[in-house]
Structure formats: C-alpha cells, structure tokens
C-alpha cells in the first residue's frame, strides 16, 4: 500500500489536442478498493457460472450411466437424477454376451499403446533433425510438409483403405492397419517439439562434439534427458488421439464388429442402433473411457500446458 500512497492526489496531464495543462483528480482510494471488491465478486459469479456450464454435461452423463436399466429403460428421459441408482448398465457392458465393449476397449488400448511408442519415436526424430541438424534439403522438407498439411486428411482415406486392403490390414486386420496409418505420417506433426528443441542452447551440442561425442551420442545422452517435458507431451498426445478417432477407424474396420475401437462402437450405439435403448449404455461406456483418460491427462497437465503454449507462440 505504501506505493499507492506516494501517488500525488492531483495528477497533471498535458492535453495534446487543446494544448492546455489539466489537473486530474485521483479517484478516492477507498472507493477504488470497493470497486475492486465489486469487480472480483462479479468475476467469481461468472467463474462459478462457467464451471457449471462446463461441468454440467459430464455430471449429467455420469447420472445417466447409473440409471437402472431394468426399471427405467435405456432411452433418453426428461429428468436428471435417476429414480433408482444401479449398476445395470455397467454390468451389461462387462457381462452380457451381446456386448463387445471389453473387446473394443482392449483394441483401443492396444492401438493407443503402440501409437504412444512408435509415434513418439517418429515425431522426436523428425523434430530433432529439423531443429538441430543442418543438411541439404532441410528447408525443402519443411515446405513440403507445410503444403501437404493443407490437404484435408479424409481426401486420402479411400486410397489408404485400398492400400491397407492389399496388405490384408482391414476388417479382421483393422487393429494393426490403424496403427500403421496413425503412425506412418505422424512425423508431419513435428512443430511443437521442434519449437522445444529450438530453445535448448546450441553450445551444449558443440561442446559435446568437441569432446568427441558423435551426433547420435549427443542426441541420446545430452538432448533427450533435457527434453523430458516434450517427450511426455508427445507420448500423451499420441496415446490420447486414438481414443477419439471415429472416421478412419470406422472406415478401416467397416462391418467387422469385434475390431471396432470404442469410438466407433459407442457411436454406432447411439446413432445407428435404436439409440433409445442404448443411450444409458452409451453413457456408461463413455464414463469408462473418459475417467482414465481424464485422470491421466490431469496428472500430466503441466506438460500439456507447456506444449500448447509453446506451440502457439512459435506457430
């Protein structure tokens, strides 16, 4: 507060347009504090409102998933709180012979794990190379990737489908097929981690090279330990993406129900099947997918924030 008291009661402001010197009264400090309190209260009200809007759908989702299937049917209803809480829907997902949910979950988990490993290796190789190594054709590669990135992804879908079909990686082979197309072009998403590598001082590499280290040793022993945040960010992104992919997954696994991923399976429950009967089951499945992913994400939130802010700043 001492700083504020030093401000003179009357400020002198030079008005450029009229060319005169005006005196401006400082606002009363006490009323300023009151004003501040009112503003803060307003902000709190807004933030609570925002939180409610943002959380409401998920809370509703959880409520619906606990509704009793036996007594209240599986459709959409006009009330929020279940009249009878039960685990019917979850039990059905796990136990019913008609439910492929566990299989789908396993498929997606498998895809996500493979992607997390292979895609991370791909992305880190590309971004490290483009950031820290200088060679002929580097600029060309970056421009080609930029241009390729402007083509819509689904344009190539049918070609990819037939390429995979030639390799026997559709329908029954959808899982390895999907892993292949997810990781094959993943090197193109190098921007964020390149931005990170750019910030590590070059002198580190140089001094190691003078000490006789090869480029490979520099990469493995010096840069990688420093790059832990971006490695975690890349793994996190690679692991999360397959859980939400509907388009490619539904196209590649078309018609082969045991080889769906969760997104395709659950989407078909609400949109293709009679969704009135499957709605609460969809909710239960959604909760089972969302909870572990959200927990993982919140645990690693710090790295995600570093990644997106870095990426946005460098473009």
């Amino acid at each position, binding site marked *: 507060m001492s700083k504020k008291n030093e401000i003179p009661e009357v400020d002198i402001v030079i008005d450029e347009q009229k060319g005169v010197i005006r005196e401006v009264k400082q606002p009363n400090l006490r009323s300023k504090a009151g004003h501040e309190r009112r503003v803060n209260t307003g902000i709190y009200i807004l*933030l609570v409102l925002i939180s409610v809007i943002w959380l409401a759908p998920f809370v509703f989702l959880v409520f619906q998933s606990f509704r009793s299937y036996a007594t209240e049917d599986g459709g*959409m209803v*006009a009330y929020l709180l279940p009249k009878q809480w039960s685990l019917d829907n979850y039990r059905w997902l796990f136990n019913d012979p008609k439910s492929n949910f566990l299989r789908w979950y396993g498929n997606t988990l498998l895809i996500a794990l493979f992607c997390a490993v292979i895609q991370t290796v791909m992305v880190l190789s590309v971004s490290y190379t483009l950031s820290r190594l200088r060679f002929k054709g580097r600029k060309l590669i970056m421009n080609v990737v930029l241009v390729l990135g402007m083509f819509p*992804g689904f344009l190539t879908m*049918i070609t990819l489908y037939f*390429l995979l079909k030639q390799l026997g990686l559709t329908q029954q082979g959808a899982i390895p097929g999907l892993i292949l197309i997810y990781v094959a*072009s993943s090197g193109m998403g190098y921007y964020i981690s390149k931005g990170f590598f750019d910030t590590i001082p070059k002198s580190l590499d140089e001094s190691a090279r003078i000490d006789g280290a090869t*480029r490979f040793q520099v990469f493995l022993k010096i840069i990688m330990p420093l790059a832990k945040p971006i490695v975690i960010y890349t793994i996190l992104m690679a692991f999360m993406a397959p859980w939400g992919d509907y388009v490619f997954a539904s196209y590649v696994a078309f018609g082969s129900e045991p080889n769906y991923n969760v997104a395709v399976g659950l989407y078909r429950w609400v949109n293709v099947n009679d969704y009135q009967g499957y709605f609460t089951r969809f909710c239960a499945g959604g909760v089972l997918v*969302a909870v572990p992913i959200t927990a993982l994400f919140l645990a690693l939130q710090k790295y995600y*924030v570093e990644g997106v802010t870095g990426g946005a700043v460098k473009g």
Partner: protein
Amino acid sequence: MNDLDYLKLTGFSKLGYKLKKFFTGIPGRLAGALKGLGLWFVKLFRGIGSALADLGSTFVHGDWKTKLSYLVMGFGSCARGQWGRGILFFLFQTVFNLYMVNFGVAYLGKLNTLGTIETYREGRKTVYGDNSFFILLYGVLTLFFVLAFLYTWYMNVKQNRVSEQILKSGKKLKSTKDDLKSLMDEQFHKTLLALPTLGVTVFTILPIFFMILVAFTNFDATHQPPSKLFTWVGWDNFRQLLSSDNASYGNTFSQVLLWTLIWAFFATFLNYFLGMLVAIMINKKGIKLKKMWRTILVMTIAIPQFVSLLYVSKMFAADGLINSFLMRLGWISTPLPFWTDPVWARVTVIVINVWIGIPYLMLIATGILMNIPADLYESARIDGANAFQMYKKITLPYMLFVTGPYLLTSFTGNINNFNVIFLLSGGKPLSLELSGNAGYTDLLITWLYKMTVSDTNYKLAAVMGILVFLVCAVINLIVYNMIPSVKNEEDFQ
C-alpha cells in the same frame, strides 16, 4: 502516407486505412507467391539440366569402372573397395528391374486409358477384366518408383565421379565401416529421417497424388471397379462442381463454402476473444483458487470428443434434456428446432464450439499473459488508464503479436474441423435446396466425407479436396506475410 500522417488519423480511419492496405495488397502477395513458385521450377529445371550435363561429362572423362557403372549400378563402388555402398546400389537395381518386368511396365502401359477390357459374365461365372483402380494406383506407385530409381542411378554415377577425384588427389576412400559410422554421426539426419520419410511418401504423398488424379476421372458410384471401368475425363468434374446450371453443384458449393468461411471465422475469433477473457478473469490479481478454475476447464479437453460432443448433441435433440426441461417449465410448447432449422443449427454449432474451444485458448492465453511485463500495467495505471484501455493498448496487441501464427493455423484448422460438425449435427438439417446430400451445417470437409462414404462419388470428393487445399493455401499466402507486420512497433505504444 507516411507514419506521421497515419498517427494523425482517428480510430476509424486508421482501421479503414489498414483494411484498404490489406485488400489492395492481396493481388501483390498472390503474384509474389506465384513468382516464388515459378522461380522454384526454374531452379528445378536448371538443376536437372546441370545434372544431365554432369552425366555426359562424367561418362566422357571417367575410367572404365565408371563407364560400366552406368549399366550396372554399384559396380564402380565395389571395384574401388566400397562394398557396402556398391551392394546396396546393385540390390536396388535388381529389385527395380524385377519389379518393372513383372509388374510395373504392364501398369504403366495401361495408365493412359485406365484399362479397356470390361468385366463380363459368362453364364454364371464372372470374368474379370481390367481394374481401373489398381491400374491408377500401381501406375502412380510405379511412377514414384521410376523417379526414385532415376535419382539413385544419378547418385550412383556421381559417387563414381567423386571417388575418382578423391583417388586422384591421393586420399583414401571411406570404407563400409566408415559409412556405417557416419550414419550415426555426420549423416545422422539420414538415419533419423529414413523411416518418417518412407511413411509420409507411401501413406500421404502417394495417396494425395492419386486423389488429385482421380479428380480428372469419372470414378463414382456408376463406375466402380472391379465390375466397371473408369477413365480420364479432363476438367469435367471441376465444371460439374463449380458451374451453376441446374444439373451441377455450383450453387450448393458456393453456399457450403460461404458457411465454411463464416464458421471458421467465428470458431477462430469468438473462441479466441472469449478464451482470452476467461484467462484474464482467472489470472486477475485477487482471484483465489486459480488452479481449480483452470482444472475444471481443462477437464473438457481430456474427455474424448466423441463422448462429450455426442452427449451434448443428444442434449439439444428434439426429445433431449434441454427441450424436455424447458417444456416442463412451461416456457415453450413445441421443442426448439436446435438441429432442424438452418439458422438455429448454425448458431448452435458455433455456440457449442465455444464450449469446446475456450479451454484451449484459456491455457494458451494464460501462458502468454504471464509473460507480459508487469511494469507496463504499472505505468499505465499511474497514467490513469482504466481496465479496458489497458486491455486495448497492452494486452491485446501483445497477444496478437505473439499468437499471430497460431490464429492462422487455427483458422485453417477450423476450415477442416471435421469432428465438431460431424459429431454434433452430422451436417443436418438437409434440404432440397442443396444438392449432393449437403446440409446447412455441412462444411466442405464433412460434405467431402459424405461424398466419399455414403455416395461413393470419389471424383467429386477429390475435386473438393483440391478446392479445400486451394482455399487454405490462398488464405495462408494472403495472411502469412501479414504476420510480421503485426510486429510493427507502433502497435506496442
């Protein structure tokens, strides 16, 4: 107009001046880009020319080992003791020859017609003729392979010339062991990029090239291999999609394009400013529980979109939670047409997209806001600026300066924002006014998806893909050079 004149303008004329400068600059920027592309091609052809000249002079001046390498790849390398390289060259040539003889030549030969032998039925048996799809696909693959071979062959010849020069100057050639070592050192970029390049070539470049070619064929539901052939039709598909007579898609296309641009504009800027606002509120001095507010918003990023968007879409359905709730309160008697009225549907997707987008922007803005030097605000406060003035003169210019490139990528990203539209409205409401199965909330990209999956109208989907690319490319070209201008000093005053 010089800087001093500019500063004398009032707020509105400043804006007008900037807008005028922006639009009058567009042709110049496009011309500049075309010129750049032209220069690139000139450079490419010059490079090819000098490579041909090199080939000639190497053959004339080279020794017999080099001359034989023109026919048998890798011979020179082996003869000079570089076994590793030599064997690789030779293997590549063998594989290429085998591929061409058994496979490639046949497909290349049919590429100009895409097959002539029709599939027909002989009694109960179907006799398969040519398959246009595979002819095109493998034809393109073979072309890629031929290019790769030519390049490798050139490298093989160049290798010989360089080796000869090194030997002449009395130095030793690198052994295979040295080569392997250098792959972990001087040539490390080759090791790291090998796999990603292969992946991108086969699974991105090849398919894109293939689909660009499909745009010039009549590959659609009535020309489906293997039972039917398709063939080249030139620019017909472009005409069908763009011209505005009744049988064409021109009117629908322009409507969908317009909506795509409107959508991208709102999805980018509404989210940007609202997200920034939320970030400013959370980061304001004196607000407690900052981490909790942030976590609540961030949770929505973590939950897979197909769960959250599908659920929200059902909430807004005619029999969904919101309509039934409002009806029970007695506020409305018939369900609100969230997904059935064009205007309602468009507004609804934009609003729900704000719900999706704010958390991302809040995170990005938080990171940047923390970097704004606090003394800027301090001195502004002493000068008597109020909160809004400080926002306009300090926060906003700083944010725009730092996030310029992000805004551009996010705008093109929103043009291709498939998930939100597909999971929320699926492009509905449909209408007889629109042709080609398009709906009022369909973006170009979701329309493309419909054409591919439900209509199997691949030729138009391919044309649409090319047009989406052009739209994105033009926007990038126009805006990209603008971004450094944001760095203009005066914006920071």
